[in-house]
Every structure is written in structure tokens, then in C-alpha cells.
């Protein structure tokens, strides 16, 4: 199973699993390549560079024009960097841009280290290709994984330009330094543009990683500053290209009626009415899905037409009798009881320190509470869409995708073509939040293009996505705390149950895995003598998928709300209680929970305390509030980062509530692009608020009950709080910013509502009235 999971596993899972097999990309070495290692290939030099220290994960080809091939050819000293003869620097963005700004941020790291003038940098989106290393964009991992690699790429090119300057002036390289797209010879004051030196630099060897001099923080030109997104102008002018904006000659448009219940099948269908719609060309039945569902097509019946509207209209006119299969017994109301039953009894202990039972037996008081959080859907604005063109010679795909390399074996299997004949073009994602790491919609497009012998674009409607998505899991938690007669917390027991993401790869998987539990539950950082975490088992009856912040959403909710309940039970201020439970600053050994201690990213409780104190300070903890207002606080370590929220709620006499102000604090080490990092926290507040107010997807008889933004609601303009974002300033190894801001928000808000009203909410969503 492990090999299977490694190929199909979610981004964060794949990284962890891959780490067992190799040393990981973040330890990549840019190997010094001697002249004899160059392979002449049609005037282009191909350099083999191992991206993985162990080399097991394959090598990366780097092309460079030879020095004697003339200076008019572009020079590619690194897989991510090409320098044109006029000095234009092209930097590859190999990750997926979905709004988090990575297409700007990682190239800016390269540009900074190579002293390139950002105005003369062109960022190019990569295709899906293993030569770029890992492209599966999720788990807030892009910067964590590639920051060092990008710095080394930039620094090596800078070193080569400085060497070229030395050669040009017949000077000592120590006297030559790159500065904003020029190399300056210090003693003479002479300088030359990169364009003037590229023909010399292109003949040089790539320096070894251990010979590179990386910049110090005070030398950063772009890192930690505010950079506008590279697609900003195109976006505001309506020119940016998303999934459905790709047009091919002869392209057909497809809409699909999918089985309303996962793993259901078409029993029979009548397409007469659909075929009568003008523009409809064909109706095609797709093969039924089989477990494990993974990222595969769900099956169903597809309408192929010469425009989107005809396809969508005709699809709705298909008359289909379904065999709903075994998942038709899925009812959210009944399943809630199943989940609660699972956490009302002992589960499998996955963390057990001290003796909780003894602590509870000796306790003056045992506090207990149950929490429940429903399924959620990503609800990104751009529904799934993909275009594929399959011919006998090859298969080309255009899609908004978080995981382009996963589409290659998938398309190869469907088409029978060798992987090297599959090309995956990555468009911008109109939001993704994890959904677009799962290429079922691409699988559909490839199958249909092969079937009809023309390029096909598959367009999902909003209802398609709400009803056939990969859902954030549904969970129940039971928390218990033992308090002694002095009010000290002597024991903590956390029982939880939820369908696991791994069920899409292994239908037998019924209980949460380390990667899921590690998002808050396993990593509980409280200094309590007896801590026990128990997990229960429940089956998955819909496709479970990771959604921004994943299990940290509900695990943080349970933990942080229960922490507030402990504070009230102890008669303590919630901030004081939280800091006391957190205890003295210390490093937590994640291997003791079966997790990995990532190099450069130890779990330091002092950094969590830091964001809590910063949030309390900036949020004015303890200040006088108007009547009906309340403040709540919560904090969470996730995705190697530390985040806290102080939320102010205002509850009116009729129970309607709003959030006038929130302070979000984050310690993610070195901030790479301050503006986008701030934007991520602003968005995290809105998303967290939406989970509390509206977020809920339910199933009845295996079918999802919601369909569009009217009943699968998200936050709208006017409901947004004034959001202030503060980062802890340091130069530690950068960690995630896309996801860590979400988890503390919902519990901080629920705690604020308690502070304002005395009403305790343990179930999400809370709704618009309390």
C-alpha cells in the first residue's frame, strides 16, 4: 500500500512519505559540474543535477547554451532560470498559483539572490515536469520546500555573473559584485550589465552549493518586502488565463451527469431529449468508478456539444436511472450519532503520557465536552474545468491544477501513451484550497477527448462541484480535563473520530492517520502531566479530501474552545489560562508522536507564546468593551507556523452577531512576500468566519443536499471584519502562510461569543444568530 499511497497521496502526505525514501528537496545540492560532464546535444548543453541528495528520486536536466554557440542564444544556468541575450531574466514558477502568490514569491527569491532587477524579470509558469522537482502544491509547503533551493539557484547565477565580470576586466573575482542586474568592479568603479556578460557567464561551470555565498537578511532586495503579483495587471484587466479561458481549434464542450452517490453506476439512460438540443453532437457514457476512488473520474454520462451552454442544458435533459450502490445509506444526521458514539467510548490511544485515568480519579473536578464539525466544500470561485487534446501522437492538457505531475500517469493510463507524450499546462487556478490537487475532472477530459477524437473541455457547473466534490471530513470530538483541588489541570484526554482522507486511496482505512492527527491533536503543546489522545474508527461514505488547513480546522476548534472552558471552570482569564497551560518555553520532539522533526523547523512552544502575546497586545486584550461585545483568543501551531487570533464579536439584542475587528498574528519565520502573506491572513479570517457562520455540507441517502451559493453559503461583502495582521519579525527558516491563519479563527470567535453572551457553542456552524 505504501507505494500506492506515495504515488497518489495528498501533497503533505507525499512529502512525508517521500522523506522516508530520500533526504528531501530542501537538501538539494547544486552539484558542481565539470566540463566533461556536459553532454553536447545540438548546441545545447544538458547538465545532470540531482535534486535529491540521495539521488533516488531522479535527476533534473538542466540545459545551458554553450559558450561557443554565440551570445544570441538564451542561457539556462539553472532549471528555473534563463537569461536572454538582452539581459531579460526568465524565472520558472513551477508551483501552482491559486491566489497565494507563489508565482511571485518564489521567483522573487531567485531574483533577490541573483541581484536581478525585478523589472527585468519575466516569470513563466512551468508545465508539469519532474525536472522541476515536486510540484504538488499544498500543505503550505512551497516556500518550506523550495526557499533554499531558489536561493541557491539565484546565488549560483549571481556567482557566475561575478566570475564573468572578473574575466571581462581580468580582475580578481573578490572585487566584483553583482548589484541590481549589473556587475560592479569595486576598485575601478567599472560596471557591466548582465546583458553584456551573459556570453561569458554561459561558458562557466555552475559553482558548488557549498561554495555559494547566500545573502544576509540586511542585503535582501525583495525578500520580506511587498511585491505586487506578477499577474496583477492582467487580472484587473480581465486578461489572466484560467482553466476555462483556453480555446483550441475544433474544441468540443462537455458537461457530465455524474452518479449522485459516490461509486453509483448508470443503470440505463435515455438521451433523446438531450440530443435534440441544438449544438449537441454526442452523448458518451463514462466507465463507472471503482474503489479506491482516488483522483479518478466518477463516471456518468457526458454530453458533447459545440458550445458550453448546449452541453450544460442538454446534460440536464438526460434521463438516467442510477444504481446508487452501498453509499446510498449515508445520512448526515445518523452519521453524527455514529461519530458521537465513537468518541463516547475509549478509542485507540495514539498519544499517552502520564496516567489520565489516575488523574481523573484523583481530580476535584472532571470537565467534559463534545464538539462536532460538519463536512465542508472548497467552494472556490472557479469550478473544476479541464481541456484535453488526445491524438495518436500525444496528449496535451490545460487545467487549473495543484498537482500537474499526478496527471501524467493518469493520462498515460487512459490513453495508452507513454508518459513523455503527455504534456500538462498549468493555468491559473480560480481558487483551489486543495480541491484542484485531485484531477478527476482532468481524467474526464482526457477520456472524452480520446473518445471523440477532438479537443474537449469539461466544464463543471457549480452544482456539479457542490454535489460531487471532495469534502472536508466530518468530525466529533470528546474532550475531558482533570482539575485538582487547587484548580490545576492534571489530565487531558482527547477522543476524536472522523473519516480519513486516506479512504480515497484505501477503502479499508477508517481511522485518522498521523498526518491528520498531527494538525493540532497530536501536537497539543500543553504542559500537562497526563495527556491522552484516542482515535475512533468510522467509514467514509463520500470522497474525503483535504481543504485549506485540513484537520487543523476542527481539531483547533475543539482544543481551543475546550481550553476556554477550562479557563472559565478555573475562574481564570482565558489568556492567562492559555499561557499557563502552554507552560515554559521548550522544544517539542515531534518524533515522540510518530511525526517528523523537520530540519530548520523545530516545534518551539515559545514561538506559540510569542504570537499569543502579540495578538493579546495588538487586540487590546482586557480592554473595556461596549455592551454586547466580547473578545476571544485562540492559538494554533500548524504547517510549521504559529498563529493566534483575537476576535471581537458584537452581539445585538436579537442575537445577531458580527465581527467588527480581528487581530491575526503569525510567526512563519522569514516572511518572503509581506503583502501576500498579509493577504493570506486577511483571507483566512474571512474563511474562518464563513465556517462559523455558514459552513455545512450534508448528505441524505448518499446525495449531497446543497447545490449552489444559496444553500452552500460563504461570506459576502459587508460581513467582513476589520482585519489587522501582524507578523513576528525574525529571520528563521520560512514556513507556511497559506493555511496556519485559518485554524485559530473559529475557536477565537466561539470564545468571543461566550465572552459576550455566556452561551457556549461546541458545534459548527453556529449560524447567524446566537
Amino acid at each position, binding site marked *: 500500500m505504501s507505494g500506492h499511497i506515495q504515488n497518489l497521496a495528498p501533497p503533505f502526505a507525499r512529502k512525508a512519505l517521500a522523506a522516508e525514501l530520500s533526504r528531501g528537496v530542501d537538501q538539494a545540492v547544486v552539484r558542481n559540474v565539470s566540463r566533461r560532464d556536459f553532454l553536447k546535444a545540438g548546441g545545447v548543453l544538458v547538465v545532470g543535477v540531482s535534486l535529491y541528495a540521495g539521488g533516488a528520486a531522479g535527476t533534473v536536466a538542466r540545459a545551458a547554451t554553450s559558450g561557443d554557440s554565440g551570445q544570441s542564444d538564451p542561457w539556462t544556468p539553472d532549471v528555473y532560470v534563463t537569461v536572454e541575450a538582452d539581459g531579460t531574466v526568465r524565472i520558472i514558477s513551477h508551483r501552482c498559483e491559486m491566489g497565494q502568490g507563489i508565482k511571485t514569491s518564489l521567483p522573487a527569491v531567485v531574483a533577490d539572490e541573483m541581484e536581478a532587477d525585478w523589472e527585468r524579470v519575466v516569470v513563466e509558469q512551468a508545465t508539469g515536469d519532474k525536472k522541476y522537482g515536486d510540484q504538488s502544491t499544498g500543505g503550505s509547503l512551497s516556500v518550506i520546500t523550495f526557499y533554499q533551493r531558489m536561493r541557491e539557484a539565484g546565488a549560483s547565477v549571481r556567482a557566475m555573473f561575478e566570475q564573468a565580470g572578473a574575466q571581462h576586466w581580468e580582475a580578481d573575482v573578490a572585487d566584483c559584485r553583482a548589484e541590481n542586474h549589473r556587475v560592479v568592479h569595486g576598485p575601478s568603479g567599472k560596471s557591466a550589465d548582465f546583458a553584456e556578460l551573459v556570453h561569458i557567464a554561459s561558458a562557466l561551470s555552475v559553482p558548488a552549493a557549498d561554495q555559494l555565498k547566500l545573502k544576509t537578511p540586511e542585503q535582501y532586495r525583495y525578500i520580506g518586502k511587498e511585491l505586487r503579483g506578477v499577474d496583477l495587471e492582467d487580472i484587473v484587466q480581465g486578461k489572466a488565463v484560467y482553466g476555462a479561458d483556453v480555446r483550441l481549434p475544433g474544441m468540443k464542450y462537455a458537461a457530465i451527469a455524474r452518479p449522485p452517490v459516490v461509486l453509483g453506476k448508470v443503470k440505463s439512460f435515455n438521451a433523446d431529449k438531450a440530443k435534440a438540443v441544438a449544438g449537441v453532437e454526442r452523448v458518451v457514457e463514462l466507465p463507472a468508478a471503482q474503489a479506491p476512488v482516488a483522483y479518478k473520474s466518477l463516471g456518468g454520462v457526458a454530453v458533447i456539444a459545440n*458550445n458550453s451552454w448546449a452541453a450544460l442544458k442538454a446534460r440536464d435533459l438526460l434521463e438516467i436511472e442510477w444504481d446508487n450502490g452501498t453509499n446510498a445509506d449515508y445520512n448526515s444526521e445518523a452519521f453524527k450519532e455514529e461519530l458521537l458514539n465513537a468518541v463516547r467510548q475509549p478509542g485507540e490511544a495514539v498519544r499517552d503520557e502520564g496516567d489520565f485515568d489516575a488523574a481523573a480519579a484523583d481530580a476535584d473536578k472532571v470537565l467534559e465536552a463534545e464538539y462536532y464539525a460538519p463536512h465542508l466544500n472548497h467552494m472556490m*470561485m472557479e469550478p473544476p474545468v479541464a481541456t484535453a487534446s488526445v491524438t495518436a501522437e500525444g496528449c496535451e492538457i490545460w487545467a487549473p491544477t495543484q498537482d500537474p505531475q499526478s496527471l501524467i500517469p493518469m493520462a498515460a493510463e487512459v490513453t495508452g501513451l507513454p508518459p513523455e507524450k503527455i504534456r500538462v499546462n498549468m493555468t491559473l487556478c480560480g481558487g483551489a484550497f486543495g480541491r484542484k490537487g485531485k484531477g478527476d475532472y482532468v481524467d474526464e477530459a482526457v477520456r472524452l477527448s480520446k473518445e471523440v477524437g477532438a479537443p474537449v473541455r469539461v466544464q463543471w457547473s457549480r452544482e456539479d462541484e457542490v454535489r460531487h466534490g471532495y469534502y472536508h471530513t466530518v468530525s466529533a470530538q470528546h474532550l475531558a480535563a482533570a482539575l485538582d483541588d487547587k484548580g490545576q489541570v492534571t489530565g487531558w484526554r482527547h477522543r476524536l473520530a472522523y473519516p480519513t482522507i486516506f479512504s480515497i486511496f484505501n477503502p479499508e482505512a477508517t481511522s485518522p492517520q498521523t498526518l491528520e492527527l498531527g494538525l493540532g491533536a497530536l501536537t497539543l503543546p500543553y504542559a500537562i502531566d497526563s495527556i491522552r489522545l484516542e482515535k475512533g474508527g468510522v467509514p467514509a461514505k463520500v470522497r474525503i479530501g483535504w481543504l485549506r488547513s485540513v484537520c487543523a480546522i476542527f481539531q483547533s476548534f475543539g482544543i481551543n474552545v475546550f481550553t476556554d472552558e477550562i479557563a472559565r471552570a478555573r475562574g481564570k482569564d482565558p489568556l492567562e489560562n492559555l499561557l499557563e497551560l502552554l507552560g515554559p518555553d521548550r522544544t517539542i520532539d515531534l518524533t515522540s508522536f510518530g511525526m517528523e522533526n523537520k530540519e530548520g523547523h523545530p516545534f518551539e512552544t515559545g514561538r506559540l507564546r510569542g504570537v499569543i502575546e502579540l495578538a493579546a497586545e495588538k487586540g487590546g486584550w482586557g480592554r473595556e468593551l461596549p455592551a454586547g461585545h466580547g473578545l476571544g483568543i485562540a492559538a494554533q501551531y500548524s504547517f510549521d507556523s504559529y498563529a493566534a487570533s483575537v476576535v471581537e464579536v458584537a452581539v445585538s439584542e436579537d442575537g445577531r452577531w458580527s465581527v467588527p475587528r480581528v487581530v491575526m498574528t503569525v510567526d512563519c519565520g522569514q516572511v518572503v512576500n509581506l503583502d501576500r502573506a498579509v493577504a493570506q491572513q486577511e483571507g483566512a479570517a474571512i474563511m474562518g468566519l464563513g465556517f462559523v457562520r455558514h459552513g455545512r455540507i450534508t448528505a441524505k441517502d448518499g446525495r449531497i443536499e446543497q447545490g449552489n451559493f444559496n444553500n452552500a453559503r460563504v461570506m459576502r461583502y459587508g460581513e467582513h471584519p476589520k482585519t489587522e495582521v501582524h507578523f513576528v519579525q525574525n529571520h528563521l527558516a520560512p514556513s507556511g502562510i497559506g493555511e496556519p491563519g485559518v485554524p485559530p479563527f473559529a475557536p477565537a470567535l466561539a470564545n468571543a461569543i461566550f465572552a459576550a453572551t455566556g452561551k457556549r457553542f461546541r458545534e459548527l456552524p453556529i449560524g447567524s444568530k446566537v
Partner: protein
Amino acid sequence: MIELKINGESRQFDGDGDMPLLWFLRDELALTGTKYGCGKGLCGSCTVHLNGQAVRSCVITMSAVSGSEVTTIEGLDAEGRHPLQIAWAKHDVPQCGYCQAGQIMQAASLLATNPKPDGEAISDAMRGVICRCGTYQRIESAIKSVAGGEA
């Protein structure tokens, strides 16, 4: 035959009159700045101007727009330098960007009829255009900067 003007150009359509304007813009004219988000007029990603008013092009049929003047994000300003587009860039509003053409078109329609909207008028106008990334705070700043309020 349905005739209408789109971004100042005369256009003709002789297909299904029930087809929403959105698909004519996107599939027939390749004006892909206008986005599909919900198909039910619930999210506003498809917002265009119909005779100067913001409408949801995913629910307005071709029959209903016969003889009308339609403006899309591509036609809002010949240079793409409408004050709101400039403000959107200055405030770095977009995250994923998918909804932003709809946001800008909605805001442009508001300011065309009410150049100095108060907070409530802005909320009333903008409530119908969803941004899942949560850029509302910056949308607010951008609109207010153009409307002469605080930026």
C-alpha cells in the same frame, strides 16, 4: 437574429435565444474576462454592464439583451486604466483573481450612478459578488479610494 453592441462593437447572434449572455461572450466572442461561477446569478463573477447597469450575464438570456449595449471588463476602459482598475492594482486586491472582473464591474456601475457612496451603499452593491479568497477588506479600500473616502 439578435443584434446588440458589445464594448461598442455591433454583434449578431442567431443561436438559442435562451442561451445566457455569458456563454455568448465567452464561447463565441472569446471575451473570457467575464467568468462563470454559479450559473444562477448568485455569485456575481459574471457581472457585466447592460445599458450601464450591472447585471449577471449567467442568467440574462440572449433574447433579453437584443438591441442592448453591453460592456465587459475588456471594454470598461480602452487602456485597462479605469480608476477602479488602477485602485485595484494599487491596493493589490486580487488573490486568485477569478471574481475580480465581476467585482470591478459591479463597483464601476455603483460609482457611475453614485460617485460618493457611503458604506451601506457600497455594501448593498457589493454584497452580490462573492470572493472566496476573502479580499473584501481591500475591495472596500479600493472603492473608497476612488470614491474619495479613506483609502
